């Protein structure tokens, strides 16, 4: 395992100004400039330091339990008449891919001399993963979470508290992930010296999208090796991942970005239907603008007010996507699909019954599109199973009798 450092001159990777094509940048108020600039100037140096890499790799292996298995899903494959592999990020410690990033960022925060950590969370997975690494390192942890999400992801709130974190409800706007992120950014403005903000997805001001993608790139690095060992070919026909801000997708796509024979499929949350007014399908409903200090695609009104999205899944309930994904969308390098709440629920039930794996509501969106891909019997498909469904049991049970 190592963090991707040399990414060459890929046209899909960040450029020296922090942009992916016309997307990206760091549209931060001056109050945040010193923090963001410190990260921009130091992150690559820290990530490429051998002692950092050693520590990162050791924790991923012994604490997170990596490499996560690449599992051939036999019955799912029979159903969809293709060779479907699941990248089991759900088996990581804390139950999702989010921990890959929080391990990386807590080690970075230590090297920056910070001792207070803040984070935003939607589904609570990133909050739990942050609270976990803070406990591990003995750092103070404050997590902002939308008050609606606090209700729908109660088990994760309890976990964060047990891990010693303070969970602060975000009560503004739509009271979900967007607003939790606003509150985290405001906290950072008010605590510029001692605090590191562990942003949980491949969004936000440069260098976050790139930094998070690099920490998550371990996902595709492992897929390559595992697939080669299992099939004799490191390149699948498809890599499919759900996308909220885009961190698990960025990690699953990372080492395939410049491999044209691998089709990349990102699945957004269609909510109650893309044109129902209750959706989070950013590429279909969005236009270019600035959200959380990044120039990217986002859902907004004609007057430039950010729209409140909807998804059954708290982790995908976000009105933007990270700038790398906006660029992948615009260049056509990745295909963007959307799955509705109902499709995702059905896919979650299907995986549970066919494979004995209860997926996270978010990951179920990726699974839901297997039925829409034009698959041939010899196609190899890797689905990033970004997390497990324990946190979603309430939602699942509520829909069980419908």
């Amino acid at each position: 395992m190592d963090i991707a450092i040399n990414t060459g001159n890929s046209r899909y990777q960040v450029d020296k100004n922090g942009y992916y094509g016309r997307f990206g940048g760091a549209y931060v108020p001056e109050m945040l400039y010193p923090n963001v600039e410190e990260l921009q100037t130091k992150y690559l140096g820290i990530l490429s330091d051998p002692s950092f890499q050693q520590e990162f790799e050791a924790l991923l292996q012994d604490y997170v339990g990596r490499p996560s298995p690449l599992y051939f899903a036999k019955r799912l494959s029979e159903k969809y008449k293709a060779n479907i592999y699941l990248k089991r990020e759900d088996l990581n410690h804390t139950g999702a891919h989010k921990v890959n990033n929080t391990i990386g960022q807590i080690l970075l925060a230590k090297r920056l001399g910070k001792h207070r950590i803040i984070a935003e969370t939607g589904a609570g997975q990133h909050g739990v993963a942050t609270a976990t690494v803070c406990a591990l390192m003995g750092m103070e942890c404050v997590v902002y979470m939308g008050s609606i999400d606090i209700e729908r992801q109660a088990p994760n709130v309890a976990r964060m508290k047990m891990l010693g974190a303070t969970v602060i409800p975000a009560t503004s706007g739509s009271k979900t992930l967007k607003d939790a992120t606003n509150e985290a950014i405001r906290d950072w403005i008010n605590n510029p010296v001692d605090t590191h903000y562990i942003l949980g997805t491949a969004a936000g001001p440069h260098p976050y999208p790139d930094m998070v993608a690099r920490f998550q790139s371990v996902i595709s690095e492992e897929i390559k090796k595992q697939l080669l060992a299992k099939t004799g070919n490191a390149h699948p026909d498809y890599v499919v991942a759900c996308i909220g801000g885009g961190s698990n997708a960025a990690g699953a796509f990372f080492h395939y970005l410049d491999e044209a024979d691998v089709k990349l499929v990102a699945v957004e949350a269609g909510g109650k239907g893309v044109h129902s007014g209750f959706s989070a399908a950013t590429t279909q409903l969005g236009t270019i603008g600035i959200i959380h200090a990044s120039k990217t695609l986002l859902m907004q009104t004609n007057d430039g007010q950010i729209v409140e999205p909807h998804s059954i899944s708290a982790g995908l309930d976000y009105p933007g996507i990270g700038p790398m994904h906006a660029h992948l969308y615009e260049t056509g390098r990745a295909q963007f699909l959307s799955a509705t709440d109902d499709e995702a629920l059905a896919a979650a039930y299907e995986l549970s019954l066919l494979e004995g794996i209860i997926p996270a509501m978010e990951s179920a969106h990726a699974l839901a599109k297997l039925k829409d891909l034009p698959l041939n019997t010899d196609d190899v498909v890797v689905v990033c199973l970004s997390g497990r469904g324990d946190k979603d049991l309430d939602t699942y049970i509520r829909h069980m009798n419908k």
Partner: protein
Amino acid sequence: MQNRIDQLFAKKQHGVLNIYCTAGFPQLNDTLPVMTALQQHGADLIELGMPFSDPLADGPVIQDSSTKALQNGMSIHTLFEQLAGFRERIHVPVILMGYFNPVLTYGVEAFCAKCAETGIDGIIVPDLPMAEFEADYKPIFEKYNLHLIFLVTPETSEARIRKIDSLSKGFLYAVSSSSTTGKDKDMNDQQAYFERLKKLQLTNPVLIGFGIKDKATFDTAASYANGAIIGTAFIKAIEHSKDIDKTVQSFISGIIQQ
């Protein structure tokens, strides 16, 4: 015509009072009555906030005023409609303050053109970074004689302050402490920073903002700079006002002696 902000600082270098209010707040059509009262009762400069759904640099009071204004139906289009012809009555410099996304969506050039046509003198966009401004937008602002006013904070390095000073026009907005708007941080802790700013002998006038809420804080700030900016305290004052003119009069007379 010389920019009104420059005209102001040419005749007044001390105790300049800039008051911030959110457009369309507390009621949609209060924008002009508030501005008229501000001029009438002694504000030297008016900073009008264009409400945004996600005001990252603002504390709860200004956030709530923004939410309220949006609920009232305020938008950039509506604001320009309200402001049409306002220069017949209002002569003090007026600055629009807002986040970059609505301006970008409106179109930066269209926005600047409309500002010039309406009689706006300057713009504050806290989340438009200096580098992007310089690379993409500076000539547009200059073409329309609009001053873009940048922020500096206690954490801004001297080299960067000098760079910001060279790109800023009108005045520099010195944020009193690293915080969102409306935080009560102790002004005495900031005096070393104010002192440092003063010693830099910057080319632009300096107004201090964030946390200025009464006569004492205004006087302290004004003793180190050309004046100060009041936002949150004013929003609180007019939030439930039954008589805008009276409220503004008593608010301002509490800050400055006429």
